[in-house]
C-alpha cells in the first residue's frame, strides 16, 4: 500500500501551456508535470525566483493525472496595445501606457484554452524530506491563489485534497472519487461533476514512475531545470486510456 495525495481540478476554462514562442500560445489537453508542480508551489507559497524549492519539489514528487474530460478547444483572439519602446521610459500604469493613442502598436496573441475540462491529480513522494500532509493542508488553504494554467482560469470547486492509501494510483483515483460521491450523497446534493459535458467517452491516465506493460510511453520536456532561465528537461511518462461507455466516439 502506498500513500497518495489526490485532488480535483475543475474550472470552466483551463490552459496548459505547450512549448510556445511568439504569437500562438497552444494548450495541451491535460496538465503537465510542470503545471502541477507550479500549482503545488503556489499553494505552498514558493515565489518564482525560489529556484531550489521548485527543483526539490519536482524531484521529490511523482505525479499522475486522470482525465475525465479533456475539454473543447477555445482559441481566443487577443490583442494588446503597447506603446513604442522609448529608451528608458517605464510606464507606471496602464492608463499611462495608453495615453499617446497615435503611437500605440498592437500585438496579436492567440491563446488556446480548454472548456469543460476536468481532471483528478495524484502525487506520491519519492524523497523523505517532502511532507504530503503539509501539501494537503496548503492545497486546501493555499498561500497564493491557485489557477488552471493561466491566472484567469479560476478553479470552480474546492480541490478537496485528500490522502489516500492504495495499492496503485488507479485504485487511489477511484477511492478518491467514491469518497467524494458519498459526501454529496450524504448531504443529498446533486453530484454536479456527473454532468454529461464533464465526462468524455473514455478516461485517460497519464503518470510517471509506476511502469505498466500495457501503457504507452511518451516523452515530454517539462521537468523543471530552472524556472529563472525557463529550462526544462525531458521526462518519460506513461499513458493509458479506457473506454467508459459503449457509444460512438465524438469528434
Amino acid at each position: 500500500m502506498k500513500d497518495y495525495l489526490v485532488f480535483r481540478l475543475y474550472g470552466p476554462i483551463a490552459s496548459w501551456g505547450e512549448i510556445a514562442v511568439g504569437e500562438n500560445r497552444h494548450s495541451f489537453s491535460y496538465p503537465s508535470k510542470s503545471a502541477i508542480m507550479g500549482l503545488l508551489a503556489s499553494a505552498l507559497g514558493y515565489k518564482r525566483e525560489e529556484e531550489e524549492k521548485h527543483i526539490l519539489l519536482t524531484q521529490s514528487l511523482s505525479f499522475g493525472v486522470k482525465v475525465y474530460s479533456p475539454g473543447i478547444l477555445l482559441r481566443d483572439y487577443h490583442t494588446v496595445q503597447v506603446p513604442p519602446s522609448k529608451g528608458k521610459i517605464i510606464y507606471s500604469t496602464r492608463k499611462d501606457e495608453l495615453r499617446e493613442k497615435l503611437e500605440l502598436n498592437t500585438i496579436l496573441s492567440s491563446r488556446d484554452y480548454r472548456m469543460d475540462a476536468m481532471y483528478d491529480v495524484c502525487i506520491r513522494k519519492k524523497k523523505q524530506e517532502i511532507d504530503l500532509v503539509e501539501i494537503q493542508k496548503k492545497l486546501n488553504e493555499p498561500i497564493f491563489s491557485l489557477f488552471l494554467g493561466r491566472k484567469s482560469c479560476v478553479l470552480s470547486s474546492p480541490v478537496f485534497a485528500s490522502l489516500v492509501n492504495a495499492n496503485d494510483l488507479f485504485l487511489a483515483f477511484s477511492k478518491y472519487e467514491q469518497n467524494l460521491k458519498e459526501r454529496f450523497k450524504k448531504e443529498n446534493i446533486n453530484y454536479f461533476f456527473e454532468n454529461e459535458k464533464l465526462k468524455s467517452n473514455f478516461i485517460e491516465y497519464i503518470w510517471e514512475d509506476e511502469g505498466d506493460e500495457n501503457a504507452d510511453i511518451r516523452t515530454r520536456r517539462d521537468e523543471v531545470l530552472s524556472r529563472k532561465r525557463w529550462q526544462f528537461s525531458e521526462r518519460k511518462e506513461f499513458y493509458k486510456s479506457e473506454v467508459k461507455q459503449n457509444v460512438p466516439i465524438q469528434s
Partner: protein
Amino acid sequence: MNRFIQLHLLTSYPPSNLNRDDLGRPKTAIMGGVNRLRISSQSLKRAWRTSDSFKEKLSTHIGIRTKEMGIQIFESLKEKGVKDKDAKDWAKSIVGVFGKLKGEKKESPNNDLEIEQLAHFSTEEKTMIEALIAKLASEKRAPKEEELKLLKKENSSADIAMFGRMLASSPSFNKEAAVQVAHAITVHKVAVEDDFFTAIDDLNKNDVDAGAGHLGDTEFGAGLFYLYICIDRNLLLENLNGDRNLTNQTITSLLEACTTVSPTGKQNSFASRARAMFCLAEKGNQQPRSLHVSFLKPIEDKDMLAKSIDEIEKMRMNFEKVYGKCSEGEKSFNVLKGEGSLESISSFIKED
C-alpha cells in the same frame, strides 16, 4: 487577516458587442456544453484600469502630473553647488526615465529638460528623486544606471500591484498579479445574432440608382453575465510595499470599478452600459473557488436574474455542506430586491 477576498457578480448587458474576435463577432465560450457570450478577462481589466472612476478613487495616492520635473531637478542640483552643465546632464538622465525629452530650443534654454507629455510622479518616486539629487550633489558624480532604474522599481502603483506586469526585457520590474479575474460568461445559452443594416445616401434622389449607400452587418448578443474575481490581499499588500491604507483603498476602488464600469467596445452603437445587479463578497483563508457550477446547467427560467441569484446562493451553501467551510464570512447586495449596498460590501472587504 483574511487572505482571499472573492467577488461574485451578476451583470446584465442589453444587446451589445463589448468584446470581439478577429471577425468582429462577440466572443463566446462553451460551458456545460452550450454556447455562451464571453467578455475576456483582459478586456474587463483594461476597461477598469483606464476608467476615470478608477483614477479618481485612487487619486489621493497619485503624486503629481507634470512636464517640468526636469527643470525642478536641474534647479535643485544647481542650488546644491553642482556645475550648470553637469546639473543639466544629470537632470536630463533622471527625468528621461519618465518620458521622452523635448528638443533644444534657442529661445527657451531649459526646453530640453521638459518631457513631451505630462508624466505622473508618485509620492515615492518624488522622494527617491530628492534622495538621489542629494546623493549626487554630495558625491559630485553622475547617476548610475542602476540608480535610475530604481527610481521606478518601487512604485506603488495600485494598477500594477493588482494586475501584474511582465517585461521580458527587464524582468526585475516584473510583478506578480494579486488579482485574478475570470472571463465573464453568460449564465444562459446564447446565439449570436446578426443585424443587417443599410445606410441611405441622403443626396441620392433615386433618379438613377435607388440602392442604399452602404450595406453591412453587425453581430451582437445580450446576456446576464457571471463574473468572478479573487483578490489575494497579502500579495497585494506586499506589492504595495506594506501600505495598508493604500491596499484597502485599492480593494475598494476595484470593487467600485468592477460593479460600475463596462467595457467600452461598441458603446456608441449599443449604449450597453450596465451596473452589477448582484454582488456577493466572501473573505477567508480557504482555497478560493468560483461559483461557475451554479450555471453549468444553463439557466432557462423566465425570471433569469432572480433564479441566478438563487442558484449562486444555493451553490455556496451546498459547497459548504460537502466540503466544509469555504469562507469566514460573506456579504451581498441585491439590486432586484433593493437589499444591501456597495458601501456595505466595501467596508466588509476592507481589512478587519
